[in-house]
Every structure is written in structure tokens, then in C-alpha cells.
């Protein structure tokens, strides 16, 4: 992933751009051998934990995320949070200390993780049918085990599967995907190397059937004219992710059904 140069005083992490490697080669292949509009390989598992109401594990390339859902249950902490007409969604995001190339202790109250938690909460509040569960609380906990770009997307996809596993009704799937713009061409599903090259990338969370965007986030500089191209590519990526997740959910359900009826 990165070179570790042994220096007398301290470890140095040298990013790839100093080594002169191109993000996208002349033949149109990226560093990990993908084409510009190809997703990374998605592996998913539902129902990984017994204690939680719903849980899921997802691997997008090298990014690994775990999500657990508890609820709907009574509002535990803070009576003030009770909403009389809908459920309260509570999200917590955390990255394991061993998730990045360098071991880094991340306290829970860190700004980045708080921002991520808030985005996750807003995303799922918009999608879960909270009106069916007044005066209750739904908890979603997400943990990143290995971070290789697209952390937020992996969290959202994992959480979607976990919520489906918990049996909580949603308006539609929420699928998230990143799209970047490097060397005048849009790229789908940015990995960590491509992220740290400083190129602009867009994170989109959307409901695939109606193409409604739930969350949109963009970093670095992108010219307004290229915006539409990148947005279109991200939309396409979300739809591809949806196809994979949906197939997995149906397989999982038919397996479980077969197991239950077979005995």
C-alpha cells in the first residue's frame, strides 16, 4: 500500500505520488487494475451477530465495515429525546485503531467521527419509516475494521443491510458510492491511494429506484462543468451497488427460508 522508509529518526510514510506512479495508466487501467467506471468487489454477510436485532458485514475491495442495529426499543438515555410521533435514530461511527496504515488511537468524541455519525443519522432518518414507531429509539452502530477509501459508503451500505436484517421497514435501500475526477476523467469508487492524491471526489448516498439523493458531500476543487459527469457516474455506481446488495439479500432470505422449512 505505502512504502515505509526507515529513517534514523522516525518512520516516514511516502505517498505514491512521490514515487511517480500514475493513478490511471495509458491503457486506462487504475492502480488496482480496474477500469474507470468499475466498482470494487463487494462481499456482504447478513446476520453475523446473535445479540443484535440486525447486523451485517460488508467488504468493498479492501474496506471492511461492520454494522449492528438495535431496535426499535424504548428510549433509554435522555427522556428529552422522545418524539411523540416517530422513532429517534441514533448512530455511532467509529474507526478501529488498526484500520489505517498507521496505528492511530481515535477517541470517540473526535470531530471526524462525530461528523460521520451525524451524516449517518441524517441519512437513515430520511429513509427509515420512523412514523411507525413513535416514542422509541433505533440504534445503529458502525465500525470500520479496515479503511481503504470510501469509508462512509461502506458504512451506509453495511447499515442498510443491517436495518433490513433487523426487519425495520425502509422507504428504499440506501446505497452510497464515491466518484472522483482525476486527469480529466471521472473515476468510480475511489480507493485510499486515489483519495490521498488530492483529487476531488464526490460521495453520494441515494435511493436507487427513485434516484433521490439523500446525502451529497464533495471535497477538494471540482469545476462546475464537470459536476454533472461526476454526479452521473456516482449515480450509476449506486445503482450497481444496489444490484449487488439486493441480490445478496434475496439469496440470504431464500437460504434462511429453505433452512427453516427443510427441517
Amino acid at each position, binding site marked *: 500500500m505505502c512504502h515505509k522508509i526507515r529513517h534514523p529518526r*522516525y*518512520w*516516514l*510514510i511516502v505517498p505514491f505520488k512521490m514515487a511517480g506512479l500514475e493513478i490511471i495508466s495509458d491503457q486506462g487501467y487504475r492502480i488496482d487494475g480496474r477500469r474507470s467506471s468499475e466498482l470494487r468487489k463487494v462481499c456482504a454477510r447478513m446476520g453475523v451477530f446473535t445479540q443484535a436485532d440486525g447486523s451485517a458485514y460488508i467488504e468493498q475491495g479492501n474496506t471492511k465495515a461492520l454494522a449492528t442495529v438495535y431496535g426499535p426499543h424504548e428510549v433509554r438515555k435522555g427522556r428529552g429525546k422522545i418524539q411523540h410521533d416517530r422513532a429517534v435514530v441514533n448512530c455511532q461511527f467509529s474507526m478501529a485503531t488498526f484500520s489505517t496504515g498507521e496505528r492511530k488511537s481515535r477517541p470517540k468524541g473526535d*470531530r*471526524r467521527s*462525530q*461528523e460521520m455519525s*451525524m*451524516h449517518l443519522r*441524517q*441519512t437513515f*432518518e*430520511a429513509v427509515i419509516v420512523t412514523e411507525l414507531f413513535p416514542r422509541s429509539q433505533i440504534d445503529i452502530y458502525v465500525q470500520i475494521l479496515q479503511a481503504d477509501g470510501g469509508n462512509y459508503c461502506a458504512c451506509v451500505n453495511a447499515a442498510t443491510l443491517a436495518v433490513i436484517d433487523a426487519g425495520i421497514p425502509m422507504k428504499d435501500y440506501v446505497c452510497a458510492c464515491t466518484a472522483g475526477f482525476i486527469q480529466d476523467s471521472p473515476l468510480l469508487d475511489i480507493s485510499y491511494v486515489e483519495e490521498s492524491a*488530492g483529487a476531488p471526489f*464526490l460521495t453520494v448516498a441515494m*435511493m436507487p429506484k*427513485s*434516484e*433521490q*439523493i*439523500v*446525502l*451529497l*458531500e*464533495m*471535497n*477538494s*476543487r*471540482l*469545476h*462546475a*462543468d464537470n*459536476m*454533472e459527469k461526476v*454526479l*452521473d457516474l456516482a*449515480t450509476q455506481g449506486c445503482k450497481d451497488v444496489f444490484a449487488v446488495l439486493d441480490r445478496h439479500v434475496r439469496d440470504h432470505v431464500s437460504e434462511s427460508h429453505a433452512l427453516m422449512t427443510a427441517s
Partner: protein
Amino acid sequence: MKEVPISTCEREFILKAIRDRKRIDGRQTYDYRRLKVSFGMERGCCIVELGDTKVLAQVSGKIEEPKKNRPTEGSIIINLELSPMASPAFEPGRPTESGIEMNRILERNIRDSRAVDTESLCIVAGEKVWSIRADVHVLNDEGNIMDAASIAAITALAHFRRPDVTVMGEEVTIHSPEDRDPVPLSVHHMPVCVTFAFFDQGEFLLVDPNRLEERVMDGRMVVGMNMHREICTLMMSGGMLLVKEQVLRCSQIATVKVAEIIELIQKALDKDAQARQAGEKCGFAESVPANKITTNKKEPTLIDTTAAAQQASQVIQEAGPVDKPMSNMIVQAPGTAQIGEGLVNTWQIDDVDMESEEEEEGRKKSVTNGKEAEATSKPTERKRPVKAVSHADDSGSEEEEKVMLYQGDAEMKSTEDSTALQQPPNSDKPAKKKGKKKKAAQK
């Protein structure tokens, strides 16, 4: 302190107005409020007023060790402070979620888009670099802190001057401002945020929401852009569902708005540079307008006195000459004279003697005042009588009663005394009538 929840009727009113394409403060849908950028005495200090939202940004620099994985780059830190001074909804201590979100957007807008060159902040690679810190404080929250804060932050960074540094071999010399002129930061571009507020699940959108519109909106989108039409940051959140076309339309609107705002910032920077060169006074005290009352103008109330004048002249003609001069006038004190005596109280208030006594005194005083003024204003009949009544007006809050009693008293007097004091009461009548008219006009 929790913010007072907005009432349903207020919410409905605002939403209804928005559906009719009207805003409660009279702006158009894509209009910004009045934007004013001013600078303080020190370099790097900037106050931005967007309508009533006031934000202050201060930039400071310090020499520190660089980060281990970036030894040749300085650092830019942007910190947004939401204190209870701005709004009772903010709590002291830990920032709320929305505060953190705004902070992150500001950071991404300026730092991640590389608006300020960090490589030029390096002094000695791996050992000493400049760490520039921009503290943005919200002084008053009347909606849309995000835009005001982004304008303040980038303007303060452009205004700031850091001390000049020379490196000779191993020696590093930091020059004081007296030695060498401070050096500006290298600002590549100026990213400014534009906030859009959405209503009715994205059907209606407004630019620059004020505080009430923010309370009522469904969600918001922040687009950070610079002059070259590059989107530096984009954030859409709030549990709202949007379509691609809306996002693209917002970015187009943002292009126009950002161009206007950056033009204004440039003008403000140029004006401040000129003022500093010319040695003029600069700073907040000069730029904050003094809300003092310097002039006061009262419009005169026009009273139609034509009919009264005619009546007065008629009465005077009918009245005939004055037989007996008003000589039995007793001067009690300077400004107070008495002609005749008070009459018995005919209001038939038996129980409270105090009141009747006061009323008698009051009557006496008004009678004496009026009479005295009249006595002195014989030549000018019309104007003076009016003034006489206004004189009674100044004397206190019981004037209404006084005037009424004076009226009744005069009428009673005119009916009872039909001999000597016939003339003055008669000429008093039109005066009293005018007085009543004036009172009515004033009311």
C-alpha cells in the same frame, strides 16, 4: 438554554408566504441580505455583517514543528466558535452537532481546497513551519452563519500579514514589524459558501435564509465556490431528498452569487489598503455606525380654523363693546393670576372631600391660567387661545379632566354670570372649541 420552539401559526405563515414566492423580510428568492465587510486595527481581523448576522474572524500565526508525514508544509487551522453570546440556543462548552458540521465545512472549504498555499509556510523543512490559525466567532445569529463565517475566514486570511523570516544556513531570523514589512499569505483563490434552504421536500428553495426561515426549512445545501467556477465544497444534509437537476441548478445560482460576493470582498480589501496607506483611521470604531438620534423633526398638525375664525368674528360683532374692564385680577404668584372666585362644586360628589377639593383647585388653576393667557393675548385672538389650551396640556396627566371641567365650568359660568364676565367667557368658547378640536386632531 433550549431555544423557544416556533409556534405552528408562525411556521404555517412563513411556509405559506414561501409557497406564494414571498419572503417574510421582503427579499426575492435569490437575494442576499445587506453584506458589509469591515476590518479591525490589527492585520487579519475582519467583521462580516450579513443582515443582522455578525461574525468576527481573527487570524494569528505561530511557529511550530510540522506534522511527521508532511515535513515541508505548514498548517492552517480554522476554528468556529458558537458561544451563547450569539444566540441562547448555543450552549457553552461542547459544540453541538450543527456546530461541528459547520466547522468541518469551513475546514474543507478553505483547507482541503488549498485556498492558502501551505508549502510557502515552511521555514526549515522538518523542523519549523508556520501554523496559521483562523478563529471565527459568531457574535449574533440571525440566520445563515455558514456564509458569513466563510466570508469572514477567507477575507481575514487575505488581510493577514505574517512576520518576515530569513534563513541563513542554520540561523533563522524572525523580523519584527518595525524591521521589515510583514508579508501576506499566498491566497490562491477565495472560496465562499452559499447556503440554500429547501422547503416542501425540495420544491421551493431560498438563498440566504434568515433565522426564522432556518427554523422552518426541511434541509439545506451548502455550495462553496470560487471565482473560477470551481466547486470547493458541497454538502447536502438534513434528511431531505433531492434530485440531480436541483443540485445542478443550485450550483449555477451559486456561481452568480459568489461572483458578486467576491467583488464586494475585493472592494473592501482595496479600500482598507488605501486607508492604511493614507494613514487614515481604521478599525471597528470607525466602521461601526453610531445609532444616535441626531435630528428630530416634528410635522406640524394642520388644523382647519376657517370656520372657527368666522364664528369668532361673528360672536365679537354680536357681542358689542366691553363695559367693564377685567380689573379684579389677583396675581397670586408669577404666572398665576386669579379673576373671580371658584364656584360651588356641582358634580354632587359627597363622599370624597379630598377629590372635590382637588377638583376645585384644579378648576381654579386652569381657569386662572387660561384667563391670564387670554388677558395677555387680547390682540391676537385666534392663535393665542389655541396656545392657551396647549399650555394647559403641558401641565400634567390630569389635563383631560382639567379641560373637561374647564369646558363645563366656562359654560356654567356663561349661563350664570351674564353681566360683567360675559365677554371673556364668550370669547373663551371658540377657544375651548378649538382646544377640543386640537385634542381631537392630536388623538
